[in-house]
């Protein structure tokens, strides 16, 4: 296992990257503001206005300067005179590039300590600044209209949003990557017990790797357990059938007919129980392939077979319905449903229903049905409703459990209900593939 920084380390790394990106982008924003340039005529107009205003203010005596300044205020620039040195500007991006443009037109302003800064209290971006007069007093000015091309607000918003969005994407991707092994673990955990288990690659942060490793080992143990149990029971089933075969042949030699038939009945019941137990426990040992099958013909055959055994089972569905199914498992499941229906009802009806993406096999009888509160319980293995459906029923109560498991493994469903007109209805719905 290669060394790995843990989940905390990774989250800190993500945070660090986020902070660095934010820092970098802010720096870039301010950098950009200082390099902001305006149109040449804009710079020239400002340069001339400042230069003339400064000369006029300097030419007037200090007491008159406020008045002169007011008259110099146009609808474009506000000018104000102050005796004192201006307070240092608050945090506001300075406009170096724009200042340079203005100084190109009026180099004298350079000696007048002209400063420019971005003034953005409201929605409109304006520029403010100061110029010193020869006697050390100061002229303050600011633009009254947003300077053409100075759409810094939008740009700033954008510039603030882009890093935020980029950060979220970046952080999301990084966190997602860290959680990828966990997601795979969840998917694999969902599949445990269904078919072959696969190992989840041990990747990601140390904590996650330890969980994945433990999971893989647990999965191995579970599979070994299931396999051992299935093999043991299959062996038992097999070994059980040989004495059953002997018993069956021996029973034929019993002279007394009632005794002979009773023994034969017992043997048949035991054989049915072994078969259902094997079907229930050995279900996953040999996954059958999906075969394109005319399931209508399958139902016809099941109905005909039952009819040949003296039962009233009718198929009323369409003549043909091709679907991809596992034929043996499907036949066993339907056979269980038909067996139940024929045991409790007199007439059994088989039907097929289809939608664009499902096929439903319906088995209906006219028997007593089962109590509504037991509808879900009877799907459990080893559950028998002796009181409700007659006491003479043999078997382990695995019939519906086998159906339920077969259908579930196919991503389908088993629906049990009492029919409103009396009788019981069992429906297997399978996805079409």
């Amino acid at each position, binding site marked *: 296992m290669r060394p790995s920084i843990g989940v905390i380390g990774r989250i800190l790394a993500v945070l660090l990257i986020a902070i660095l990106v934010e820092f970098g982008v802010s720096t870039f924003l301010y950098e950009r503001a200082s390099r902001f340039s305006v149109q040449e005529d804009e710079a020239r107009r400002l340069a001339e206005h400042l230069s003339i205003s400064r000369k006029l203010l300097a030419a007037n005596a200090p007491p008159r300067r406020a008045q002169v300044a007011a008259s110099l205020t146009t609808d474009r620039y506000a000018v104000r005179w102050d005796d004192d040195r201006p307070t240092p500007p608050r945090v506001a991006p300075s406009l170096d590039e724009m200042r340079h443009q203005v100084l190109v037109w009026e180099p004298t302003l350079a000696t007048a300590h002209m400063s420019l800064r971005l003034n953005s209290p409201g929605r409109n971006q304006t520029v403010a600044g100061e110029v010193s007069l020869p006697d050390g007093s100061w002229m303050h000015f600011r633009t009254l209209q947003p300077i053409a091309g100075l759409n810094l607000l939008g740009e700033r918003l954008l510039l603030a949003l882009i890093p935020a969005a980029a950060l979220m994407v970046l952080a999301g991707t990084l966190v997602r990557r860290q959680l990828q092994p966990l997601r795979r673990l969840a998917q694999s955990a969902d599949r445990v017990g269904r078919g072959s288990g696969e190992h989840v690659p041990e990747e990601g942060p140390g904590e996650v790797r330890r969980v994945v490793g433990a999971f893989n080992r647990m999965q191995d143990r579970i599979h070994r357990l299931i396999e051992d149990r299935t093999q043991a029971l299959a062996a038992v*089933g097999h070994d059980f059938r*040989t004495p059953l075969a002997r018993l069956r*042949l021996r029973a034929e030699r019993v002279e007394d007919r009632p005794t002979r038939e009773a023994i034969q009945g017992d*043997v048949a019941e035991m054989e049915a129980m072994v*078969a259902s137990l094997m079907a229930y426990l050995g279900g996953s040992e*040999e996954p059958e392939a999906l075969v394109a*099958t*005319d399931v209508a013909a399958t139902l016809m055959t099941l109905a005909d*077979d039952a009819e040949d055994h003296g039962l009233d089972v009718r198929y009323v569905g369409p*003549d043909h319905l091709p679907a991809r199914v596992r034929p043996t498992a499907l036949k066993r499941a339907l056979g269980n449903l038909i067996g139940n229906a024929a045991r409790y009802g007199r007439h059994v009806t088989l039907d097929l229903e289809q939608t664009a993406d499902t096929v439903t096999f319906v088995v209906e009888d006219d028997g007593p049905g089962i109590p509504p509160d037991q509808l879900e319980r009877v799907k459990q293995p080893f559950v028998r409703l002796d009181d409700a459906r007659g006491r003479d029923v043999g078997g382990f109560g695995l019939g519906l459990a086998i159906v339920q498991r077969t259908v579930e493994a196919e991503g389908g469903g088993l629906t049990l209900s009492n029919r409103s007109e009396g009788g019981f209805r069992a429906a297997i719905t399978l996805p079409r593939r």
Partner: protein
Amino acid sequence: MTAPTILLVEDDPALRTLTARALQENGFLVRPAAAAPEMWQAMEAGPVDLVLMDVMLPGTSGIDLCRSLRAKSDVPIIFVSAKGSETDRVVGLELGADDYIAKPFGTRELVARVRAVLRRPAMERREGSEQGLVRFDGWTMNLGRRELASPDGAAVELTGAEFDLLSALADHSGRVIARERLIELSRTRLGDSSDRSVDVLISRLRRKLSSAGHDAPIVTVRGVGYMLNAPVERS
């Protein structure tokens, strides 16, 4: 005609004795064997008409034994399996076994299966053990696996009796087969609706073999019998 000789391969001594007795009482000569080596010895001791073999033998598996036996001889084979799984049945039939019987079986079922396999003509058996594909009107019958596929490739489930009836019709395609002869032919496999009249089987077959707007190619000749009215191709 001398009684047919059956080579019985079964590892359980008591069951071997019981099965042998059941067969003997029904007029067969039985040569018992406990496992593969004894089976080969028994094969050399004299002609054998049929081998009845447990799939789960100690040592060699019955499947392997069946394969090597089939490589040497055309003798009919019936598999006995305690697993009762469909896969076993299909694998057994594909390897060249002629039939399959599940443990526990009764004397009647056993004797019926043995007689049916012995009655089946050797040629049909060989076809069954090879590719054995029969095609007519778009439909494909796989004689070995006893499967029928529709023109669009979907497997169509047939009972044993229906399959035998259809293969009898295919064997004599274009010719009318009398009802009595068909009853005889379709009863080679017992246990599957043996007492159903041919007419019922034919109507079931027709329903399964029909396709949208297209009737099954089985023609009724009133008072005589039935005919498969389609050219048959074999491979």
